[in-house]
C-alpha cells in the first residue's frame, strides 16, 4: 500500500482553510514585529484567552459570545502593550522575546486556574457548532467554517492592505516598520503606531479564536500553542521583515500542513510535524533569507 494517498479536492479545500487561519495569525504576529521588532510568542495565548471566553459564554447568544471574545482579547492586548511592550521597547530583541515567553506561561497558568474550578481540564465552546456542518460544493464536502475562514481572511487582509496603503496612519505604520528612528524624527507618533499595530493584532487574534474554536471546540490551556509555533516558523520561512512575505509564509505552512495531513494515511498522521519541519529545513537551506524574499540574504544598508 502506498504511504501517500492521493491528494484530492477535499484535501486541497481543507488545506486552503488551514492556510487562511495561519495567514491571519501570521499577519497578527508580523504587524507587531514590524513596529516593535518583537516576536510575540504569547500571541497564541491571546487566541487561547479568546477561545476560553467563547467557551465560558457558550450559553449566550452567538453574537454576544463573539463580542465578549473580542472585548477580552483586545483588552488583554492593550494591557500587554501598556504594561510590558511599551516599557521594554528599547530593550534588546532577546529580552523582549524571553518576556513574551514569560507572558505566555503566565497566561496559560491563569487559564488553568480558571479552567479547573469545575474539576476538569478543558471547556467546550458550543455556540458556533453549527458552522461545523458541511455543505456540498461541486461534490466536495466543505465545512461552513472553512468558507467562513477563507472569506474572513481575504476580507481582513484586504481591509488591512487598504489601511496600510491608502491612509495616513497606514503610511506612518509602514514607515515605522521600515525605519522607526527616522519616522520619529519626521514626527510620526511612536505610541500611536504601536498602539494601532497591537490593536489590529488583537482583532486578528480574536478572529482566529472564533474560527479555531469552531474547528476544534475543546478549549484547554495549550489551545492554539501548536498553531502559534507552526505559524512563527512559517513567518520566518516566508520572511519576517516584511508583512506580506510573513503572511504568505503563514499561509504556505498552513497549506503545506493541510496537504501533507491529507496525503498521510490516518495511522501515519503522527509524522505530520516531522514532514512539515523537514520541508521547513529544506526551504531554509535553499532560501535562507525567506521563501518569498528578493535576492540573496544580504544585510541592507
Amino acid at each position, binding site marked *: 500500500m502506498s504511504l501517500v494517498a492521493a491528494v484530492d479536492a477535499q484535501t486541497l479545500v481543507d488545506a486552503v482553510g488551514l492556510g487562511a487561519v495561519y495567514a491571519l495569525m501570521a499577519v497578527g504576529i508580523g504587524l507587531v514585529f514590524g513596529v516593535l521588532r518583537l516576536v510575540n510568542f504569547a500571541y497564541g495565548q491571546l487566541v487561547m484567552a479568546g477561545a476560553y471566553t467563547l467557551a465560558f459564554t457558550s450559553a449566550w447568544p452567538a453574537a454576544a459570545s463573539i463580542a465578549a471574545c473580542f472585548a477580552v482579547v483586545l483588552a488583554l492586548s492593550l494591557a500587554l502593550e501598556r504594561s510590558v511592550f511599551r516599557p521594554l521597547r528599547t530593550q534588546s530583541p532577546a529580552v523582549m522575546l524571553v518576556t513574551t515567553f514569560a507572558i505566555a506561561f503566565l497566561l496559560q497558568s491563569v487559564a488553568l486556574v480558571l479552567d479547573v474550578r469545575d474539576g476538569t481540564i478543558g471547556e467546550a465552546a458550543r455556540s458556533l457548532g453549527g458552522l461545523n456542518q458541511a455543505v456540498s460544493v461541486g461534490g466536495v464536502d466543505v465545512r461552513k467554517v472553512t468558507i467562513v475562514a477563507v472569506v474572513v481572511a481575504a476580507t481582513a487582509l484586504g481591509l488591512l492592505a487598504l489601511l496600510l496603503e491608502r491612509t495616513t496612519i497606514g503610511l506612518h505604520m509602514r*514607515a515605522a516598520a521600515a525605519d522607526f528612528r527616522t519616522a*520619529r*524624527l519626521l514626527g510620526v507618533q511612536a505610541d500611536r503606531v504601536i498602539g494601532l499595530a497591537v490593536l489590529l493584532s488583537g482583532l486578528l487574534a480574536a478572529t482566529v479564536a472564533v474560527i479555531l474554536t469552531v474547528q476544534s471546540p475543546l478549549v484547554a490551556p495549550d489551545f492554539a500553542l501548536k498553531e502559534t509555533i507552526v505559524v512563527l516558523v512559517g513567518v520566518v520561512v516566508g520572511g519576517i521583515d516584511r508583512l506580506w512575505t510573513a503572511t504568505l509564509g503563514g499561509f504556505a505552512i498552513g497549506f503545506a500542513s493541510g496537504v501533507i495531513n491529507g496525503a498521510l494515511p490516518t495511522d501515519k498522521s503522527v509524522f505530520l510535524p516531522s514532514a512539515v519541519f523537514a520541508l521547513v529545513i529544506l526551504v531554509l537551506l535553499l532560501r535562507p533569507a525567506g521563501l518569498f524574499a528578493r535576492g540573496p540574504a544580504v544585510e541592507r544598508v
Partner: protein
Amino acid sequence: MSDPLLELEGVEVRYGTVPALRDLSFAVVPGEIVGLIGPNGAGKSTTLHAVMGALPLNTGSIRLAGQPLAGLAPEQVARAGIALVPEGRRIYGGFSVEENLRLGLAARQEDGADEALAEVLSLFPVLAEYRKRPAGALSGGQQQQLAIGRALVAGPRLLLLDEPSLGLAPAVVDTVFAALATIRERGVTVLLVEQRARRTVAFCDRTHVLANGRLRTTLAPADADDTRALVAAYLA
C-alpha cells in the same frame, strides 16, 4: 538683534562616560543661516541629535523660541517645528517619492498640507516628475532634494541639515547649495552641519567651528577666502 529662535546653553552630552559636547552655547535668530563645521567627532551631528531630543542632555538646556525642549521625544520636537534632514538622507527607498513627502507632513501642525506639497514640488521639479516612482530609484542628488523637500513640507520654523553634501559628486553639491539658497530666500531659519568648510563659511551668516565637543571659534563669510583663518580654526 531679535530674540533667538534656537538657544543652546551650557549643553553637555555624554556617550557613556565620554563627553561628546561640553558646555556648548550658541543661538540662532529667526531668518539666519548658521553653519556648524569641524573635524570628525567634533560633535556636529551630536548637536543636531541633542536638539531633536534623540540624545539626553547631561546638563544645560535647549530652547525653541524660549520654550525648553528638555524631555521631549523626537516626534514631539519635530511637531514643535524643528525639521531634520538627517545624515545619509534616510529616505524610504521602497516608498514612492510622494509617499516620502507625505511622511514629512507628520510633523505639520498647520493646515495647507496640499499647498506645502505643491510648493516643494515646484521648488524641486525633479520630484514632481518622479513623484510616483520608488524613491530608491532616484540618484543621490535627487534623494537629497527629496530629503530636504520632506523636511520643508512640515512647515518648520527651524531646519537642521546634517551634511547634505556628503557622498555627492561636486556638480550635485552645487545643486544642493542652490536649493539651500532658495530656502534662505524664503526666510527659513537654518542650522547647517557640513564638512565642506570653505563653502559653508562663505554661504552661512555665521559659522561655528566645533572641536572636541566645544565651540572653538566663529567665522564670518569674509573668512572663507582667508585660508589661514580656516586652517587655524581646525588646527588651533
